[in-house]
Structure formats: structure tokens, C-alpha cells
């Protein structure tokens, strides 16, 4: 049994919808929850914009590249590799 905290039981409030965004994008909502979320989006331009912003956030985050490997670090790692190669093998 579901407890309804909202005036109209089948409608999501925007404040609830924003909490479902990740579940929606992860395809982790139940079919019923997904339907309710999509129904809400269809009638709510603000939450549609919110979802677009979450997608844009993921895209912008994904564009960050890690710092380049410095020549010094690469040299250290090659030295490490050579030390390992010279280690006595037990196998």
C-alpha cells in the first residue's frame, strides 16, 4: 500500500521528480515509477529543463581530462619496471 502525501495521488510533485532523475537515467525505476516520472515531465517544462541540465552536467563532467603524465613520473615508473624485472621470480 502506498501512502499518499500529495493532494492528487497520481501526480508527482516537482520536488519528488528531481529525486528520481538519477534512477531514471540509470534505468533503475520500476515501470510504474518510470511512467509517473515521464507523465510528470510531459506536463512540466521546468522539470524537463532540470533533466536536460542533469544530462548537460554529466556531459560537462565527462569532458574533464586528467592531468598529463609528467616525464619525471614516466621515468620513475620505467625505473620501477626495471627493478621489478630484476626481482628474483618465485614461480
Amino acid at each position, binding site marked *: 500500500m502506498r501512502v499518499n502525501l*500529495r*493532494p492528487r495521488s497520481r501526480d508527482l*510533485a*516537482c*520536488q*519528488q521528480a*528531481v*529525486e528520481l*532523475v*538519477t*534512477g531514471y537515467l*540509470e534505468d*533503475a525505476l520500476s515501470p510504474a515509477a518510470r511512467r509517473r516520472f515521464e507523465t510528470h515531465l510531459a506536463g512540466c517544462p*521546468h*522539470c524537463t*529543463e*532540470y533533466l*536536460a*541540465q*542533469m544530462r*548537460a*552536467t*554529466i556531459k*560537462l*563532467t*565527462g*569532458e*574533464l*581530462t*586528467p*592531468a*598529463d*603524465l609528467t616525464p619525471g*613520473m*614516466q621515468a*620513475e*615508473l*620505467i625505473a*620501477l*619496471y*626495471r627493478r*621489478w*624485472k630484476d*626481482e628474483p621470480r618465485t*614461480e
Partner: protein
Amino acid sequence: MELLARLRSGDEQAFIILVRRHHAAMLRLAGTFVPSFAVAEEVVQDTWLGVLRGISAFQGRSSVKTWLFRILVNRARTAGVRERRTVTLGEEPAVDPVRFDQAGQWASPPQHWAEDADDRMQAAKVADRIRSAIEDLPPRQRQVVTLRDLDGLGSADVCSILQISAANQRVLLHRGRSRLRQLIETEFGRI
């Protein structure tokens, strides 16, 4: 697998390729566990040594990247001082409650993000702000966001690397992404 076979047979070039491919992302991930860049560097070096010593143990059940990251996380957790092992998942709304009215409808709705936000100067500035916002995330959120959205790993791999449940992974991802969206919104409002 071929790269690993070359590595096992003592091909230094194979090691260099592996390092070039993964080292920077490993350093970035290590940084989410330990308090300084210097410690993160040590952890990653230690990881590479562990990788070489354990190379014959790699079974190929996961991708090389996932395998490397798992070894890294084990070592980083040992070295890390910031992390609490348990995930405390208290209330943390995705959007500040003051932006909704009493019925939970938007009172202060999100404004449309301009498409011209990829102006070069502006993009660089936003990237810098996102980078520092990620650094400011609580460690568990930062780890999940880094692996999912920066490294592009799937949720199953991330659960396996961090040893967390799918549900926790999702909550951490949701909170991390929500905070970043908020930050970008503030940033765009300022431009």
C-alpha cells in the same frame, strides 16, 4: 589481453603503453582517497608494482582498467585517512527545498542553459569550477562521480571497484551529480 601477455613476457614497451593509458586516471582516483597529491602518487606507484607482481594472477574476468582500479582502491584505502568505511546516507535533497512551494512545485525554477556556453574562455572557466567542485564533494560521492562520469565506467564496475551496493552507488551518484548541477547553475547565472 595481448598487452598483458606482452607485459608478462617482459616487454617494457607494453608497460609504458599501459602506464600512458591509465596512470593519469589512477592518480585522479587515488586523490579521492588520500589527503595529498604526494600520497596519491605514492599509492599509484605502489599499485603499479603490485600490478607487475600480480600480473600472473589476472584472470581476465574484468577489464584491465577495472582490475587496475580495484588494486588501486585497496591500496588507497590502506593509505587513506579521510575515508569512513560506512556510507551514511542521511537526507540530502537534490535541490534546495526553498526553491519549491508548499505543494512541492517549482517556485524558483531552473532557467534554460544557453547553448552558447561553449564559448572557449567560458568553457575553460566552467571546467575549472567543475573540477574544483568535484574536489569539494564528500569523498564517497567524489569517488563514484569520478569513476562514472569522468572515467566513464558502468555502474557494475564501479560497485565492484568500490565494493558498494548498486543502491548506494546510485544514491552517491545522484547526490554528487545534483551538487554539480547546482554549481554549474550558479556559475551560469554569474556569467
